[in-house]
């Protein structure tokens, strides 16, 4: 045993101070970010905010969404098909029917008048050859995606969906949201503190694709798809389509589904939208006003100017919201009515402002924790930790006497370093994380046990107390490293596996064990030196 050297004391105190400072600093930073924080935070406020709480403690929503990228492929293929048809019309190439596209591509039917060579040239110039492959099969040509193009569109759709979701979450004003792409087509969304799953799902999950489409003169509404088809003698022209809508009976408060026949190509889409906000309709009901950008306004002006007296269908996510008559040329703005409640109108305006999703999304996984359950968990977790810790302390001191006090000091320091480290790396504390914390205390004491038992053995073998202490630390060290490596290795696989709470557990466990390497080996040794090191002769050690 040596006299306690100054640098060891300084290092220990420095790490202690750094841990406390890290916690305090993180608490202040967190308060600065919080919109509802008091301007002059008290120490209690800071202490409460030092470690970021996970969704299971704070309450919040965890969603895993899947982007239906096949939607994007279909839309893109339809665009390409329409482009080919337009080009054909411009160049005088006769085409047969072009049925609606699917996610693989689209089909062009040839008629007697179609000149295959001209069509071939047309396809070559109208479509990028790198993206599309043409399979000329008699009178039915099939245009399909090449694999690279397919991959790119899927990827693009997923990326765009992440962006859109981020915009919407930002508009919701959630503090510290997590929005991450997972794998090819999944999006992870975590919204701490949000306790309204229904509203969140509506805002994030609504596609929000706005289309303004001219209605056909025989546009309906019809009571069924069949009735709509009958109006066209069972054969709806390819440039028209049937879209679902609803009719409101304000007196009976009922909604019935009806069907409209509208132009397949939209006059203006949500891509040309500049802004949207809550307004009121003619009956002072909440509605959504929208405003178009310059390009959109130009297109819209032309279409409305040319079609005065006709009806315009306002289609949202493939459902007709309303079908007003065009009374005059409209350019920059319009209104979406639909008997909304104030909350629904607010949500729709938000969705339109943040842009449409490139494809539909489905919820694969949803986890919601209400704030009161979170509070309950914190209470229970903290009580259990406190009781567990005190029991461990009592048992240790009872068994090892003064050396036990040494171990307890090391454990407390371990706890402080662990919390400081979590604050420093901004790790999230979860309920399993609290369990990890208390488990760490139980496991960290193992290092002390290993050392103390070794010291006792050395003394049993007749070594002088001072030498026994040094030998105990030295000989137990290799074993301590081994025990730490095995536990940390298991925790590493834990980290790879599972969602937030389990990850939080892995993080606390690893940090706690790392800290125990320092506290049990370095600090405990230092404490022995402080107590016994300066004495000339040590008769016995309280162990």
């Amino acid at each position: 045993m040596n006299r306690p050297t100054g640098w060891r004391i300084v290092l220990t105190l420095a790490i202690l101070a750094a841990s406390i400072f890290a916690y305090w600093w993180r608490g202040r930073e967190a308060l600065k970010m919080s919109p509802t924080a008091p301007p002059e935070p008290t120490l209690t406020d800071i202490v409460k905010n030092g470690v970021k709480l996970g969704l299971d403690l704070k309450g919040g929503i965890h969603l895993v969404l899947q982007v239906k990228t096949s939607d994007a492929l279909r839309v893109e293929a339809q665009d390409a098909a329409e482009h080919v048809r337009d080009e054909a019309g411009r160049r005088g190439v006769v085409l047969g029917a072009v049925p609606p596209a699917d996610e693989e591509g689209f089909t062009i039917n040839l008629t007697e008048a179609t000149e295959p060579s001209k069509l071939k040239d047309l396809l070559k110039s109208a479509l990028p050859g790198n993206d599309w492959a043409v399979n000329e099969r008699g009178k039915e040509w099939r245009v399909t995606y090449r694999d690279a193009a397919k991959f790119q569109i899927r990827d693009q759709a997923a990326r765009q969906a992440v962006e859109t979701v981020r915009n919407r979450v930002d508009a919701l004003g959630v503090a510290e949201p997590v929005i991450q792409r997972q794998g090819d087509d999944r999006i992870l969304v975590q919204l701490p503190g949000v306790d309204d799953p229904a509203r969140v799902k509506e805002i994030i999950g609504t596609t929000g694709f706005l289309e303004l489409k001219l209605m056909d003169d025989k546009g309906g509404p019809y009571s069924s798809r069949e009735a709509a088809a009958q109006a066209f003698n069972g054969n709806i022209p390819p440039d028209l389509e049937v879209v679902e809508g609803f009719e409101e009976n304000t007196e009976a408060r009922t909604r019935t589904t009806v069907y409209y026949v509208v132009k397949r190509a939209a006059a203006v889409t949500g891509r040309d939208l500049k802004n949207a906000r809550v307004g009121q309709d003619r009956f002072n009901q909440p509605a959504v006003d929208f405003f178009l950008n310059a390009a959109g306004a130009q297109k819209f002006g032309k279409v409305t100017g040319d079609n005065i007296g006709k009806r315009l269908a306002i289609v949202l996510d493939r459902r007709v919201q309303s079908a007003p008559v065009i009374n005059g040329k409209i350019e920059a703005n319009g209104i979406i009515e639909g008997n909304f409640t104030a909350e629904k109108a607010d949500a729709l305006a938000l969705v339109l402002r943040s842009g449409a999703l490139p494809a539909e999304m489905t919820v694969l996984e949803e986890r919601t924790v209400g704030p009161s359950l979170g509070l309950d968990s914190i209470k229970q977790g903290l009580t259990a930790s406190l009781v567990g810790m005190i029991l461990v302390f009592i048992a240790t001191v009872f068994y090892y006497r003064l050396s036990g006090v040494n171990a307890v000091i090391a454990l407390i320091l371990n706890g402080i370093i662990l919390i400081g480290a979590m604050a420093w790396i901004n790790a999230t504390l979860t309920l399993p994380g609290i369990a990890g914390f208390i488990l760490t205390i139980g496991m960290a004491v193992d290092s002390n046990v290993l050392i103390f038992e070794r010291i006792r053995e050395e003394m049993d073998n007749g070594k002088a107390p001072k030498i026994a202490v040094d030998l105990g630390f030295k000989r137990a060290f290799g074993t301590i490293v081994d025990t730490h490596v095995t536990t940390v290795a298991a925790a590493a696989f834990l980290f790879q596996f599972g969602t937030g709470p389990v990850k939080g557990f892995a993080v606390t466990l690893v940090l706690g064990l790392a800290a125990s390497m320092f506290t049990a080996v370095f600090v405990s040794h230092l404490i022995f030196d402080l107590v016994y090191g300066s004495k000339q002769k040590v008769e016995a050690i309280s162990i």
Partner: protein
Amino acid sequence: MRLFKKANIDFLGIKHICIGVSIALMVAGAIAIATKGLNWGVDFTGGAQIVYGFAKTPDENEIRKIVESAKLNVTSVQRFDRPEKNQILLRLPMEKKEGRDVSGEVTAALTAALNPAARDSSSLDLNLNGQDILVAKMVADDPEQLNGKPDKDPKIEYGRQAEAIIAFRSKNGLFQNVDQAASTPEISPAVASWLKSNSSAGPFTLLQAETVGPQVGRDLRQKGLWAVIFSWAAMLLYIAFRFRSASFGTAAVIALVHDTWITLGVCSVFGVEISLTVVAAFLTLIGYSVNDTVVIFDRIRENLATRKKEPLDSIVGRSINETLSRTIITSTLTFLVTVVLFFMGGEVLRGFSFVLTFGIIIGTYSSIFIAAPLVIVWEEWKAKRAASQPAPAPAGKTAKAR
């Protein structure tokens, strides 16, 4: 105080009995798993699991009827946590169509049936709606008439009060009635009276909702299985590398598989729900179990180096005895902690602490009675095989560990 001063217990003498007992336990575990199966949680099976907190004692049968009348399948309706908390846990099987908002539909059905005030769509159910909607509605109605006052931002003013109301609700579990909501300390009289006329306190609040689709369930199952298998492999490699001996690595991993297996069997017998956190407990158990074994192995290695003439079985027996007090003390301390977690950590940590508590017992047993003796069994078997072969093989009684 000392538990074992110079312990000298003949653990190896009963090694065949212990191995027999362990094999019996493992067979029993396998039978339990095969016949009773494991109680897989929603994380792995898919489906929905929803917890509601009620203001008064809830009626399970009524709730089941309401949900079923909304055309939803119900697996079970049961009381959750301590009875005085009035909590209900609803389990629903996976819906065929992925993406159906099961928790939303259940909540809507219960609200429609149990809260007459919510039928008036202008009245806000304070127990089901969150801060966002409360703020939006307050800003729209503007009870304090802040509009036109340039120095006050309604979103901040109402935001602060809405936060206080929701925090007050969390503290109480849920509001018994609107008057309780209006008694939130931090709100203005105008907001309080607005609450009384524009909101209601429904009979229940949503505490937790988990919906897991089939794809995610499948993924999690696979991930969990791989995590366990990979961590076994990592332990095998680490110990084999650290002790330069296949026998040590194999013995440790057999003990590990033994611990995981028997604990899983016990989970099956007691119907412990296998959730993500429970799998996390299993992974922790794997780390802990090896940890315990490694300490004994380390001592064997050390004794092999210092007592070159002593036969291996004597060294192994000596090493187990020398580390015995450490093994028992550490296990007891960790055991204390997990038992406290089991009784005080709440419902969420129940399964987690169960696995750890039981796992520590079985892990300690296997470190002493199984892992180290297996090294002997392995070496004896190797020696026997070497002896039965004609060519002279290296002596078998000393392990090659250094």
